[in-house]
């Protein structure tokens, strides 16, 4: 179990928990990011911030929020 901010580019990860207020959680869900979902880390070029493939769309997350999302690698 690692924070999303530490996930490597090109890896598939499963979202375990999102530690955010209900407003932000809901907004992430509206954009497709829900717990239990497998997502691919498309890029993590900038320290801590990531670009994810979420249900086919590219979602960019800043460092603040990607630190609060826990994931586990999917083989």
């Amino acid at each position: 179990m690692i924070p999303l901010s530490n996930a490597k580019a090109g890896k598939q990860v499963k979202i375990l928990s999102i530690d955010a207020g209900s407003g932000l959680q809901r907004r992430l869900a509206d954009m497709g990011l829900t717990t239990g979902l497998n997502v691919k880390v498309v890029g993590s070029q900038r320290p801590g911030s990531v670009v994810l493939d979420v249900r086919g769309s590219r979602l960019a997350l800043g460092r603040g929020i990607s630190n609060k999302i826990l994931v586990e690698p999917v083989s």
Partner: protein
Amino acid sequence: MPFIKTKNSITLALAGNPNAGKTSLFNNLTGSKQHVGNWPGVTVEKKEGSLKHKGIDIKVFDLPGVYSLTAYSMDEIIARDFIISSKPDVVINIVDASNLERNLYLTMQLLEMKVKVVVALNMMDIARSRDYHIDVDELSRLLGVPVVPLVAAHNQGTEDILNAAIAAARSDIKVEGIDLNYGQEAEEEITKLEKAIVTTPVSHLFISRWLALKLLEDDERIIKQFIKIGIAGEEVLRIKDKSLAHLSRVHGKEAGIFITDARYGFIGGLMKDILEKPPTEKKTLSDRIDDVVLNNWLGIPIFAAILFGLFQLTFSLSSPIIDWINSGFSRLSQSTADISPEWLGSLLSDGIIGGLGTVVAFVPVIFLLYLCLSILEYSGYFSRAAFVMDRLMHRIGLHGRSFVPLVLGFGCSVPAIMAARTIDNPRDRLVTILVTPLMSCGARMPVYILLAGAFFSAYQGLVIFSMYVLGITLAILLAWFFRKVIFKGESSHFVMELPPYRLPPVAGIFTYTWQQVRAFLSRAGTIIFLAVVAFWFLNYIGAIEPIGRFISPIFAPAGFGQWQASSALVFGILGKEIVVGAFGTMFGVSEGTLGATIAAQLGWTPLVAFAFMAMSLIYTPCVATLATVKRETGSLKWTGFVIFYTFALAWITAVAIYQIGSLLIS
């Protein structure tokens, strides 16, 4: 908005995710018959257009781009309220075929509202290029609504979607929609709530199942409706609270999240039936571009290079056209100068032709600037720029999202300040509004071109670019200062979709650019024209000089303590381009020789010109901007704050440039 529904008129609403191609479809449908205004009471852009198809009058409303229909953002509330209260005949839901799963989430919510929906399956070309096979007929069958494939960017399928929408509007078949099954526990609570809701007048608002779902999602707007009606409403809310407590015990998560999961669950099942993807997806061109553009070391330099290129291009392409316009106005002004009586000749040549000419000469610049900005926006680069800038913005206590309004500020502060609505955090939003006027808008360009051309001929591109850099730097410093001193507290997190890069549609780009240029021209024809004539009149009766002389001592430490400079600045508050028009009127020469005249008559050095350019950039924004600040913040206090802080900042900067510069030169 009541519509008289006759057989031959239909109202359509376009709903869809941001970047799904709504604007392209709207342009394809309505062509030039568009009206852009604001939704009542708010400043979210409202676009409506009309067309006639097979003898039917069709009105089209372009709803704001949204991911969902909750009450979390103004855009979502507007889209939803329009569907509920204006009751369009058909909602055209535009869906990105290359990003179907996420896009269908909004579709599900529209279907749960049981309104007539026609799905426009857009970007079929991109889906095809990725080897996605979509079973359109099966999708239509599973959703229970017509699905029309199209490529809005190339105006393909527009006729088909129109026919499907008309057919849907005219059909009498009861709208089935979709009643998603949320599982036994939730369904029991929904039924309980529905029973309570139908006994209240709120049930007239909309279908009760939808209201019940919204209550379980803890939707503020719907809850307010129940609070408004007193005891009966309170009873419903009590049931809601019990249901929520029960459901979160059973499911281990908030009902709102649980509902979202259920919708995605349904969509996930549906996707298996209708979509075939290649087993391993090749890395898209978009991703490969992003590897470079978002790179930790290259991201910011690339962004800076793009901005620099944009201004170089704008400037070098427009300067021959500007020369051409200037010589035309110059000749025109000479031919009217001798008209008698003398005052009329002066009014025509110094006032109207001189003043307006200097302003009209900047149409090519405005045109090219907006063209470049809209290409960047359509191409998808803007959201990358926001992401790249997020870390830096975070450091000054702002959100990467604030960067989009700031960049739009290069065009015009008015839409830029309005764009700050996309920032959820109220503190971030206010700070963004306060510093946006520091970004150098198109109307400042005339001042730069005039002075940079006359005083820095070899380096004018660089000097103009330095003004933009100065504006950005001050905006960032001030934002940091405001965030540290006035608005302490966490800024919100960066979450943004990066749409795939695409070639901007030529027609759409030109439509947008033309709308902006037209707005500039109509401003030139009204406010600027009146201001220029008023200025000429005051100048003619000799009232300008005393005003200027009264103020000018303030600017002496900045090197431009002449009354002409002060007068131009005073009138520049009506619109920054008027600074140039005012000089034109005072010296009675047109733009072509104005720079040289200023140098000769006011005895300015390049240093003074530079300080004056900085002053023009930073000092009190134009009245249109101030009115927007007032409307957006709803506060006279903050509007007054903008007036004074920008003036003080401008004065300090101009004085610093002049004094430090003088020391360095000597």
